[in-house]
């Protein structure tokens, strides 16, 4: 369960976000420059909001009133970057192991090799990111983000760099993954098919103002109106 109410002043407008998210997929939909990535950065702790609070499973991650701002390292928030940000000088195995080595206290039951196998990229374990296709990078990056067993997964434009076929199959995988993991996913996209297929809920961002939060039918109407 994620609860957040944050404001973030940017140079030309102020972002407002109110949300309560159970184990659903929330799609943040909007044009580039609408502040989508900034919202993910705020939730992950990479950027400090101007005010408000963020609560994840009863744990306060950020609160301007109580002057709490947990570092990204201890937030248990997984983040899939737009360009995947796989460490180029490490193999697939080292990439996936990277987060596990940071968590000394956590006796993770997740075997990274098994995790990679379940994503269908177990055979690539000794390769370097430059030797992978877009879809393979995406799967490795997902495995790396999930290996640390986050309580919330943020996906920034996860399919934007992929061709149509890969995009469709990965959409299915993300949906399946969400059912397995039972944690809230927040997905940023400006692709309406992504939004319709994956979004349990949708927030349309317009200059930082969530102008509408709707169920899927209403949101697709919204999308139609945009087009």
């Amino acid at each position: 369960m994620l609860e957040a109410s944050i404001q973030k002043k940017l140079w030309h407008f102020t972002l407002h976000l109110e949300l309560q998210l159970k184990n659903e997929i929330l799609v943040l939909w909007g044009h580039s420059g609408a502040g989508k990535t900034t919202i993910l950065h705020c939730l992950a702790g990479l950027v400090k909001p101007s005010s408000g609070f963020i609560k994840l499973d009863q744990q306060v991650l950020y609160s301007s009133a109580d002057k709490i701002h947990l570092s990204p390292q201890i937030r248990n928030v997984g983040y899939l970057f737009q360009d995947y940000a796989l460490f180029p000088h490490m193999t697939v195995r080292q990439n996936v192991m990277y987060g596990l080595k940071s968590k000394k206290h956590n006796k993770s039951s997740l075997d990274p090799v098994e995790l990679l196998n379940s994503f269908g990229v177990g055979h690539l374990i000794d390769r370097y990111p430059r030797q992978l296709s877009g879809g393979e990078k995406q799967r490795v990056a997902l495995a790396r983000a999930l290996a640390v067993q986050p309580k919330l997964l943020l996906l920034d434009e996860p399919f934007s760099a992929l061709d149509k076929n890969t995009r469709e199959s990965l959409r299915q995988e993300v949906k399946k993954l969400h059912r397995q993991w039972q944690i809230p996913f927040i997905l940023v996209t400006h692709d309406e098919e992504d939004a319709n297929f994956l979004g349990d809920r949708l927030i349309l961002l317009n200059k930082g103002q969530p102008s509408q939060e709707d169920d899927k039918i209403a949101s697709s109407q919204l999308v139609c109106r945009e087009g």
Partner: protein
Amino acid sequence: MFSLTDWSPIFLSLRTAVFAVIAVIILGLPLARLLARREFPGKDFLESAITLPMVLPPSVIGYGLLMLIGKNGLLGQTLAGFGITLVFTWWAAALASTVVAFPLMYQSAKAAFKSVDENYEKAARTLGASEVRIFLTVTLPLAWPGILAGVVLSFARALGEFGATLMVAGNIPGQTSTIPVAIFFAVDAGDNATAQTLVAIVTGFSFLVIFWVNRWAKRQNY
């Protein structure tokens, strides 16, 4: 045509340059990392001051060092109280080389750190890695080719330091008479054989180092 009776300038120069490189790595890398991604008032001023030794005439640097570590210098007086004199010792030569090599290390390292995509560091943060671990396992390895270039440039600059060294360390054979200083005084004394030998050695050595590093850096692209 080539002959060398006293080999001490070569060992002295190597020792001085190695000391200078280690010093600028220890001082320059953390500073470059700190300033690469941070904006604060006075940063431009600080960076200009750091870069200054690169463009100042060596005699100005030498004079500045004398004001600092000379017998009546700011630091020199204090050190004299402990019975320590730096001027006209090997330490003065090492210090002069360090000062002129520092901007090269700093500039190269800063550019190298800036060239590392910030998303790698952010990703490492969300994976729970401490800032020190991120620096050692992500930032430093990815910035490595640029840092190595800085190491080589500062080594070459330290090896070639002449003007400031002459002013603060003089020409004491076996102590402060590094290759450039020895060449100057060999020519001055009409000892062409020694001068030519030292010139050949330092040119050949410098060429080899730079050649090797360029080759090596070429293979390090991800």
